[in-house]
């Protein structure tokens, strides 16, 4: 709040009403409903529901399907985050360094951001198609049999590759802005002090880039968890079967295909807690960062 603020009462409330109304109806109501129904077992035919306490949660913990999705999500998130960050960092360091064509490279490397995840998924499906995919054929020539939709890990590989591809541009943009925010004077001083590029990168550039990196880490984890929905859905072609799937996709599959409202809600609540933890971690970090900048 500003020091010289206006003293009205009615007007600001009027300004807040649209936002508060929308979040009350489309956020708090569904969120509360999710928490509530996670403690109930819904009759699939709509004949009421019974209170079952924590049963939906214990059922999740015991479900081998859910646990395998959880493991897959963990592996998926680690791989996507790591490769999307590493490749983007490499490209950003290079783009920051070249003088000629820096703008062109930025344009060429960032535009994939605008492509919708399902469209990226469709491209993946066409490239990795079991019989006529170009990458499948390429792998076939090298003696690797790639079977999308049949082999669990082949499907996972396609999902992970497409998700990395889609995420590189965002990371690239952030890393590049981070690098360009490092003052010239700091770089020049480092150049005089230390001729070794490796040492300069790890001693100067990397620590200065760390806040951006940490922020991106959170962004990438969130992306892997939630925004890959469209990619996962298109690559498993809407027919999950034995295919790998992320936790968010399972919320959808169990809720809409399995008609398991209680179980799906319990899954929502689990994810909600996960996001809460991520947010707290991020805030802790941001707070600390404010102290030394």
């Amino acid at each position: 709040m500003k020091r010289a603020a206006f003293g009205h009462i009615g007007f600001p409330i009027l300004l807040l009403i649209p936002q508060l109304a929308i979040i009350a109806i489309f956020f708090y109501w569904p969120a509360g409903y999710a928490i509530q129904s996670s403690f109930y077992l819904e009759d699939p035919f709509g004949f009421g529901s019974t209170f079952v306490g924590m049963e939906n949660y214990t059922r999740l913990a015991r479900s081998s399907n859910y646990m395998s999705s959880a493991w897959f999500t963990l592996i998926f998130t680690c791989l996507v985050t790591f490769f999307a960050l590493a490749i983007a960092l490499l490209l950003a360091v290079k783009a920051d360094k070249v003088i000629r064509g820096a703008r062109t490279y930025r344009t060429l490397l960032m535009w994939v951001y605008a492509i919708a995840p399902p469209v990226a998924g469709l491209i993946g499906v066409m490239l990795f198609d079991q019989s006529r995919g170009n990458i499948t054929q390429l792998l076939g020539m090298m003696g690797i049999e790639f079977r999308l939709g049949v082999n669990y890990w082949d499907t996972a590989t396609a999902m992970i590759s497409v998700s990395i591809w889609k995420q590189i541009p965002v990371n690239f943009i952030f890393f590049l802005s981070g690098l360009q925010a490092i003052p010239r004077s700091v770089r020049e001083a480092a150049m005089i002090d230390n001729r070794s590029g490796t040492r300069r990168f790890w001693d100067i550039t990397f620590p200065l880039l760390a806040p951006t990196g940490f922020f991106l880490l959170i962004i990438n984890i969130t992306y892997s968890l939630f925004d890959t929905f469209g990619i996962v859905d298109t690559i498993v072609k809407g027919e999950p079967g034995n295919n790998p799937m992320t936790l968010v996709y399972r919320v959808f599959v169990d809720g809409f295909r399995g008609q398991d409202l209680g179980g799906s809600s319990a899954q929502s609540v689990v994810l909600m807690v996960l996001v809460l933890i991520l947010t707290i971690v991020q805030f802790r970090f941001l707070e600390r960062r404010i102290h030394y900048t």
Partner: protein
Amino acid sequence: MADITDTSTRSAAQSAAPTRPAKRIRWGDIGDHAILIAGALLMLVPVYMVFATSSWDAITVHRQGMQFGFGDQFGVNYDAALFEYGGFTDSVNGVTMLANSMILGLGFAIGKIIVGMMAAYAIVYFRLKFATLAFWMIFTTLLLPLEVRILPSYEVITWMNLGNTYTGLIVPLIASATATFFFRQYFRSIPEELIEAARIDGAGPVKFFIDILVPLSKTMIAAMFIIMFVFGWNQYLWPTLITTDESLFTLVRGIRQIIQSYADGSETPDYGQAAALAIIAMTPPVLIVVFFQSWFVKGLTESDK
């Protein structure tokens, strides 16, 4: 990782060494460009292939996979993708989907900016007792993406009879407060002298907002608009659930239909036409990001910090 940073730093050392004679070929620079070109190709080639494939007939693609060269079916495929009515009820074509995507993208972006700016103005510039409470209420919405509370949200929309309406499509997506936060952050960075001066001049809250704050935020609004438009245009899960009426399908929603015909396998899917639809679906957001990239980058890098 080790391998990646190794090459980056090695070349950095070479090109930066001040004693190097100017005329010698700088291998470090060439290495840098090689890596950047490889990266650009990685981004470009898959989409180029979709584009090339959109110019072929289905049989060729079915036999040989995606194409690198261009065929002669460009007109036929794009004409079919745009104007041929398809789906189960034959009630939707590319133009309808394009219009729906546009409505969703614009509606979402404009709605979010207006609602967000108003709320941020109220929180930052007024002495409100419950401003902190409102702030935290709005803040919590960032914790729970729509994907997570998807089933209950769907039930609420059904209960309110908003399925298959533009309202049901757009408004629930606005229920997260990213824009509010962004504008709050931005308003707080505006010098306080400004509002003092405005008050001395006798400007009321409405006049200050419309005549001073909005014009001052023009670039920020533009940046926000681009990001939000792309985000809305690319929505998938919510439109998939909320629109069963095909005349309300968006392009991205239409992609799911293509995938379904892939999965059925009962007939040869129209690959060329599918590729054409994918190209149509990605063109508007890509053009916006490319043409307004400095605003886009500004909004993206400043909004989340």
